[in-house]
């Protein structure tokens, strides 16, 4: 027993770390430290003695510079691959003061080229003077986008101009001036808030970013990634050797759903007016054209515009900067009768046989509500009411429905809320309810107001795009699609990154029979000899539609004021919504002309021409094909 405990004590003693053991370990640590320091000494010797000369030379005129290479922004095409936006090379002239020794001589020589470069000597000097305190290796921009003549002049005298550098930078170019400007949007210089926001990783001051429209909505795809290189430069700042390069990654290309020919057609038709046109493929929600008139030239945002130009843009009473197709809120007028008709039919207030008598006015309470046609429409059923846009018929229906039931159907049809198009600042419009009015004005809903609502006047406000979604849902049998502007995002080599997908957001609150009845009514609008929209009739194409004439000032009883001497800003807005062909529709259109007058005369022809441009183009294409094959056959016969 005693022996064992002694041994265990002994072994415990031997295992215990005593002072000598620690000393031994400390000595080892000292050797490790000394070894590590040897590495440091060796490296120091290697850098300062063996490579000292070379590194001293590199430091003397600090030859290693970083240059960034901008990525080229993705292009934008229409659905058929027609380029709408591309990049052109722009030549920027800069000076690096450190290399331009002596600075005065270089400037003097440069100013001799002022005719080509178009900058005076004093201007040059002031630009340099302003930046004198900045690190002298930083290039100072003398002239942006100086043009090819100036480039040639500078390049020829390159060796006389030390420190002068020409940078080639891709610059945004909107090929068709003013075309689809509101849809495509524009680029402009990034501001400090945007830089700080962190939404634009990798950007720096002076960069251009999308500020509006597609350029903004698809900024992350379009932008690409900046590259750069480490270069060795000589004494006058010219690159001698590229040490390392990181390639810039070009942005991805955007293919839009719009059809350039239709878009262009719509723009020509709207020229000189304020208004909007939107067209859509009713089966997918693809936007075929989106026009807001008047337009603006996007290139001026990139090239820089003068204060005066900017002021005239924002003070123009026709509001060119507003995208009227999605931001403009107008009373839907008679186009709203589609909603009243749906509500009436669905709620069982009317059926296809119900008739009301229209004497040209409707007395309600102590007020007389007039029909647009003074003489009245006589006995009217739903088809005639739609075709001839009889107000009295819809007064009757609306009065029986009440404002809240009307609002329910309008909202269920997508009115009063943004459609969700991928563009900024879309307006919601307004569908009033009794509760809304009470909250808003504190006054209870007056029953008479419901009559105005039933014909799309009063508080009702909609955007052209909302009316288009409604029309196209009518056309396709009741499905509301989200308006799509993106067909696809493709890489430079053509691989699809994202494919636009149709997206149903809801159904019209209408059964099959209801839709059939209304569609027949809409067909009669254009095809009945008495229809209000017969102006949109196209030979060979079956068009359906609805006119609308939105009162800007209240319709008055006094007939002293004739239509002609009414001031322009009291002239009603003209609406026309349409789809074609009536069976298996390919295109739906909404047209609004501000202060255009009657929907039939001002907006109808525009809708007609757009439908024709879209649908006949196919036939035109087929014709071309047939002709070319005929020619081919003939030519083959000859040989």
């Amino acid at each position, binding site marked *: 027993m005693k022996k064992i405990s002694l041994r265990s004590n002994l072994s415990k003693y031997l295992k215990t770390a005593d002072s000598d053991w620690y000393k031994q370990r400390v000595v080892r640590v000292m050797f490790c430290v*000394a070894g590590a320091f040897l590495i*440091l000494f060796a490296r120091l010797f290697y850098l300062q003695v063996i490579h000292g000369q070379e590194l001293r030379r590199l430091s003397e005129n600090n030859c290693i510079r970083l240059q*960034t290479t901008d990525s080229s922004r993705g292009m934008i095409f229409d659905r058929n691959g027609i380029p709408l936006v591309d990049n052109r090379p722009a030549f920027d002239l800069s000076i690096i003061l450190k290399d331009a020794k002596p600075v005065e001589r270089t400037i003097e020589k440069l100013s001799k080229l002022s005719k080509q470069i178009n900058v005076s000597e004093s201007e040059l000097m002031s630009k340099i003077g302003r930046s004198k305190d900045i690190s002298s290796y930083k290039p100072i921009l003398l002239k942006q986008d100086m043009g090819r003549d100036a480039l040639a002049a500078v390049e020829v005298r390159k060796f006389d101009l030390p420190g002068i550098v020409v940078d080639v930078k891709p610059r945004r170019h909107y090929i068709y001036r003013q075309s689809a400007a509101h849809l495509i949007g524009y680029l402009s210089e990034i501001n400090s808030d945007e830089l700080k926001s962190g939404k634009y990783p990798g950007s720096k001051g002076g960069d251009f970013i999308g500020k509006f429209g597609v350029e903004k909505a698809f900024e992350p795809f379009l932008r690409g990634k900046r590259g750069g290189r480490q270069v060795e430069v000589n004494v006058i700042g010219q690159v001698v050797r590229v040490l390392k390069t990181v390639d810039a990654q070009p942005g991805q290309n955007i293919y839009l759903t719009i059809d350039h020919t239709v878009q262009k057609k719509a723009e020509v038709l709207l020229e000189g007016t304020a208004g909007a046109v939107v067209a859509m493929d009713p089966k997918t929600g693809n936007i075929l054209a989106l026009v807001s008139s008047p337009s603006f030239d996007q290139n001026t945002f990139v090239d820089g515009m003068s204060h005066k130009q900017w002021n005239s843009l924002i003070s123009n009473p026709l509001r060119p900067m507003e995208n009227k197709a999605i931001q403009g809120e107008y009373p839907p007028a008679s186009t709203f009768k589609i909603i009243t008709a749906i509500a009436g039919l669905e709620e069982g207030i009317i059926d296809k046989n119900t008739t009301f008598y229209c004497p040209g006015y409707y007395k309600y309470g102590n007020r007389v509500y007039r029909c647009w046609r003074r003489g009245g429409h006589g006995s009217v059923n739903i088809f005639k009411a739609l075709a001839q846009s009889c107000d009295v018929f819809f007064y009757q229906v609306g009065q029986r429905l009440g404002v809240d039931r009307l609002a329910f159907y309008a909202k269920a049809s997508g009115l009063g809320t943004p459609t969700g198009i991928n563009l900024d600042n879309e307006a919601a419009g307004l569908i009033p309810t009794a509760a809304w009015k009470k909250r808003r004005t504190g006054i209870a809903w007056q029953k008479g107001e419901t009559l105005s609502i039933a014909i799309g006047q009063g508080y009702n406000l909609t955007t052209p795009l909302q009316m288009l979604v409604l029309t196209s849902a009518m056309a396709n049998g009741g499905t509301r699609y989200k308006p799509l502007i993106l067909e696809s995002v493709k890489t430079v080599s053509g691989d699809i990154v994202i494919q636009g997908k149709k997206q149903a957001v809801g159904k019209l609150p209408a059964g099959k029979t209801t839709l059939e009845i209304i569609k027949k009514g809409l067909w009669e609008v254009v095809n009945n000899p008495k229809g209000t929209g017969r102006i949109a009739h196209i030979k060979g194409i079956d068009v359906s539609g609805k006119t609308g004439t939105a009162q800007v000032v209240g319709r008055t009883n006094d007939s002293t004021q004739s239509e002609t001497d009414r001031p322009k800003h009291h002239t009603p807005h003209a609406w026309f919504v349409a789809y074609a062909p009536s069976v298996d529709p390919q295109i739906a259109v909404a047209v609004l002309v501000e202060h255009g007058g009657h929907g039939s005369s001002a907006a109808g022809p525009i809708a007609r021409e757009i439908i024709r441009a879209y649908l006949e183009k196919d036939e035109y294409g087929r014709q071309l094909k047939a002709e070319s094959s005929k020619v081919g056959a003939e030519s083959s016969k000859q040989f």
Partner: protein
Amino acid sequence: MFDRRFVKYFDWGLLGFTFLLGFLGLATLYSAVTSATPTPQKILYFKQLIWYCAGMTGMVLSFLINYKSLDRWAPVIYAACILLLIYVLMIGKHVGGARRWLILGPVSIQPSELIKIAVIISLARYYSKHANTKGFTLRELFTPLVLTIIPFILIVKQPDLGTAILVVLIAGSMTVFVRIERRSLLCIITACTITVPLVWFLLKGYQKKRILTFLNPDRDPLGAGYHIIQSKIAIGSGMISGKGFLKGTQNALSFLPEQHTDFIFSVLAEEWGLVGSVVILILFLTLIIWGLNIAYRCREPFGTIMAVGVAAMIFWQVFINIGMAMGLMPIVGVTLPFISYGGSSIISIMICIGLLMSISMRRFLFE
């Protein structure tokens, strides 16, 4: 209470080295902050002077305290530092995307600098209690592992990878010093070789890329790679005798990133050349050996292990910082003791020096 042997055994040599390094550090910092264009930050130099005064106070306090009482206080110190780290994560000041600073009136401190000392003390306490010549087994290493991992995770979250790695290196060095049992060591090594590729496999593409750039800055020639090449040019262009005080061109033209903190050695090497760099390296080497010698002469394990920990801390900071500036190591933000600008860094190194003094002058208590 006051023992005359305190004066007799006071480590005057260590004090001398501290002053010498402090003086050289201030001179280098002066050059780094005044000749830099476009914005000389002379104010930093005066701030650093104040930090040195604060550090001196910390040093005096820590050598007056009997280091053995730290054995008892270790858990409290450790817990307090961890709480500070958690606190700073929650409400710390954001600087350049990281939460590292705690605002205390007019000054801001980095708790991550203080935790290094807390880890050294805590591990010294644990290892000195359980030490044996066979080394520590895996089971015994569990507590030190936890003590290290907690601050590591908290610091990585800030994020301050440099300091986090430093904590692990210090703890690792101390553990290797007290010896790991052979079989456990084998286990640890095999476990590491298995998990590293496994973790690599689990990482996402961009994370891998970031680590590769971290290991090899040349992959990022416009960012880290550029800094490295400019730093190498600065050091190499100093050649044997240097360009002279305040005459460094790389420094003056702002080609050096973070020239007053992470890349301060480049400023020194550019202006003082091989001669100056070697002098600084020798001073650091001597300081570390001095620290280890204190460990050598100390007669009880707690003091020995703590001194080794402090020496390890100084060693790793010097080795990583200078190695990084010379392109031997990936770029991590680790300060160079005594020389880099930074209040918390100065105070923590001075406290560590005070600890060494305390251990050194109390060795007689065992005679």
